[in-house]
């Protein structure tokens, strides 16, 4: 089945500030359909893919993402995800997904206590998800981060499960792809930068692929994440098992 265009729904919370970036990428760079979804809406307007953008939803009150998950639109997003719909949470969107229980773990204050805003290297640890099909397993990407609370934490047992299932999609690494403490910008457990749920249809990541999609900005490694989504939605090809795509670092 071929869709003419893919419709991206970009959720807008009070305090979202990467919503227009995501919208521009979908609309102008990818040439697809895109709509904004206000947090009070009860409909996803027939979106094929939902993006929870970065920002400071509800002023980061209580905990980052803690209030946003109670908004009406998030009930729709949860139902959409449960139905197998593709959801990607970027930065604050990732924080919202963990608070909503759509992804495991939590994002703590950066261990440096500093807001970190710079380009980092990411290693693609699973290239067999709907979000990473255009990448090579183990490929090193350059994508910017901009957050104060990106320190991924989860209990040890769950981390082992995530790794065994190939749910760790991106890790912070150095330019050669080595996952080292020095390459970890925020203290994240096992250098985790992005994960998917067990079904593989919900991705959360702290780095901003939408800020590395327009050639004008100098970096385009993020673009292929959106291209991967397009491939997936247009062809409806589901990887037989995304655990097969797990990249294991050579010792």
């Amino acid at each position, binding site marked *: 089945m071929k869709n003419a265009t893919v419709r991206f729904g970009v959720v807008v919370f009070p305090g979202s500030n990467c919503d227009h970036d995501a919208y521009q990428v979908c609309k102008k760079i990818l040439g697809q359909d895109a709509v904004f979804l206000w947090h009070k809406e009860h409909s996803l307007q027939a979106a094929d893919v939902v993006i929870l953008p970065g920002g400071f939803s509800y002023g980061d009150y*209580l*905990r980052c993402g*803690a209030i946003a998950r*109670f908004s009406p639109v998030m009930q729709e997003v949860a139902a959409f995800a449960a139905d197998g719909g593709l959801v990607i949470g970027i930065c604050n969107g990732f924080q919202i997904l*963990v*608070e909503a229980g759509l992804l*495991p*773990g*939590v994002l*703590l*204050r*950066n*261990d*440096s*206590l500093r807001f970190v805003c710079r380009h980092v290297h990411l290693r693609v640890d699973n290239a067999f998800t709907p979000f990473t099909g255009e990448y090579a397993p183990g490929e090193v990407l350059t994508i910017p981060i901009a957050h104060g609370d990106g320190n991924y*934490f*989860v*209990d040890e047992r769950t981390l082992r499960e995530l790794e065994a299932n190939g749910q760790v999609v991106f890790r912070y690494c150095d330019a050669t792809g080595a996952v080292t403490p020095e390459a970890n910008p925020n*203290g994240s457990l096992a250098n985790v930068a992005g994960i998917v749920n067990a079904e593989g249809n919900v991705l959360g990541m702290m780095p901003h692929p939408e800020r590395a999609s327009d050639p004008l900005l100098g970096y385009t490694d993020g673009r292929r994440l959106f291209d991967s989504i397009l491939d997936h939605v247009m062809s409806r090809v589901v990887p037989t098992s995304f655990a097969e795509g797990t990249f294991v670092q050579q010792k």
Partner: protein
Amino acid sequence: MMKSALVIHGWIPERGAMIHSRIHVTLRPSILDPQGKAVSHAIGTLGIAGVSTVRMGKYVEVTFEGNDVAAARAATEEICRKLLANPVMEDYRFEVENEG
């Protein structure tokens, strides 16, 4: 004047029927607390010795109308569990006080 007007309308304000929940949300012991660590260092530079650890948390007061302490306790429990604390990283405890 105001007083008699209220009586005429049959409305006597009820005073004091309130319950306070005093809630503490703290990081679980297994969670690193860089904020607490920074404060601990600052205490050191204050010249105060003998502090081994500092752990930061949140203090929340919730006030309920009425005087049903059992209901307030149950509601507080639910508020903590579903909203105020994230069980992955935080614990909570609270006391409920009837200000009769």
